[in-house]
């Protein structure tokens, strides 16, 4: 029982990481119709930058905030490259994969190939119903939740958020009303970068990261985003939690080697189910 509880806590924390990634996919896709496969790079670079700042003696909190800001700037830069000119959706998707590979190469050159980690929130492990939980897990869950909730409020309740939705809904009409569609797209990339950065600085003390962790992270984040059809932040959160918990249970009760395979199998089932539903909906019309 306590083992299961332990897996659940770890799974929920991993789930929030995937949810941060998934929400990055969603925010960028909603505004620009680009599927940004460089989403995992924001986690890796954000975490690594925090690691280096800590190594240079910058206080922990400040290092992490600066790393998130740097990730937002990297996101913005990726947005500038991806939204350059008028690329087709498929061309921009390939561009994001190229950017992911490029940032992997840069990460390898700067930080090497060994897994990196740093210590997170200090303090005693907290006791919950027979299990011990590191405070960092709670920090990851709490901060991610607050970040995702404020982002949802930004998108759903503010004028700028609605303008971002308007760009996704009808870019031509958005231009007619004077909204700068390109600037909104860049803003969405910066938000995607910041979300990845938040995930990176929070996860690194719990799970060491290597320069090439981004591929797995991007795939799992994408899988979670698919749950919300790449457009719903709330369903992306649900998807993140499903994949996080499933991954931990598979790793715990079966084998760690199978966790990604099972997650991807789940994603394919979800995609099949969604296309089936869409076909049925089409038949009704």
């Amino acid at each position, binding site marked *: 029982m306590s083992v299961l509880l332990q897996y659940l806590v770890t799974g929920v924390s991993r789930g929030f990481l995937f949810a941060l990634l998934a929400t990055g996919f969603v925010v960028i896709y909603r505004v620009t119709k680009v599927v940004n496969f460089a989403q995992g790079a924001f986690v890796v670079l954000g975490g690594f930058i925090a690691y280096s700042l800590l190594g240079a003696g910058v206080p922990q909190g400040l290092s992490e905030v600066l790393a998130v800001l740097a990730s937002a700037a990297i996101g913005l830069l990726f947005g500038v490259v991806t939204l350059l000119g008028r690329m087709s959706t498929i061309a921009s998707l390939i561009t994001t994969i190229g950017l992911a590979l490029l940032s992997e190469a840069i990460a390898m050159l700067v930080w090497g190939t060994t897994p990196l980690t740093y210590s997170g929130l200090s303090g005693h492990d907290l006791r919950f119903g027979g299990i011990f939980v590191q405070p960092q897990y709670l920090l990851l869950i709490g901060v991610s939740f607050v970040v995702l909730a404020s982002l949802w409020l930004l998108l759903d309740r503010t*004028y700028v958020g*609605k*303008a971002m*939705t*308007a760009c*996704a*809904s*009808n870019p*031509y*009409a*958005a*231009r*007619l*009303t*004077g*909204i700068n569609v390109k600037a909104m797209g860049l803003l969405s990339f910066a938000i995607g970068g910041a979300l990845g950065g938040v995930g990176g600085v929070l996860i690194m003390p719990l799970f060491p990261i290597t320069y090439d962790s981004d591929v797995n992270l991007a795939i799992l984040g994408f899988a979670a985003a698919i749950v919300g059809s790449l457009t719903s932040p709330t369903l992306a959160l649900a998807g993140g939690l499903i994949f996080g918990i499933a991954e931990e249970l598979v790793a715990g009760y079966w084998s760690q080697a199978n966790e990604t395979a099972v997650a991807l199998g789940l994603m394919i089932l979800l995609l099949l189910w969604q296309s089936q539903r869409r076909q049925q909906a089409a038949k009704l019309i």
Partner: protein
Amino acid sequence: MNGTGAATAPILSVDGLVVRYGAAIALEDVSLEVGRGEMVALIGANGAGKTTLLNTLSGILTPSAGTIRCAGRLAHVPEGRELFFDLCVDDNLRLGAWKASSRDPARIYELFPKLRDLSRRKAGYLSGGEQQMVAIGRALMAGPDVLAIDELSQGLAPIVVQEIGRYLVRLNAETGLSVLLVEQNARLALELCARAYVLETGRVATHGPSALLRDEPAVRSAYLGGHVTT
């Protein structure tokens, strides 16, 4: 200044406008004027260049020659309404004020009382006539001096078109808003507007008071179906 009628300086004047799509010429030497508080129709068949002209006026397209002078703000109601379907009526209206100072849609609800009850409804779920009201309302939220409307009647029942036409005429009379009405339905356009331009394959074929154009044989046969019974 009590600018009534076209006698004072026009609010919108287009002079020698040329617009190309690559090698193809969409507009060739188009000139027209809209006076302060005037309702002007622009009629013509499909592909005559009407939408190109409006997209150029609102800055979506760049002309290769000619000048556009607008002594105020121009708002564009696009062909096919082009609403933000995922957003509610209220949000559609508020976003129209992106570059304006006031985001309060109260005045739009006064003009189209029907929309007040639909304010929380997603724009994609409205009828064609309601969508056209939202599209006009959204453009009005920009606080324009000239309203350019592309294909007001497209896809709408005649009775709905009549209703929206009456709103426009009232708006024009009460606020002095200038209107450039682009229409394939020439009969409607000539009825609502005092003056009209006829656009044919990118050129202004003829223009003048609607009452005179209605009787021109070329206009009658080409745009009014030839056998006018009224």
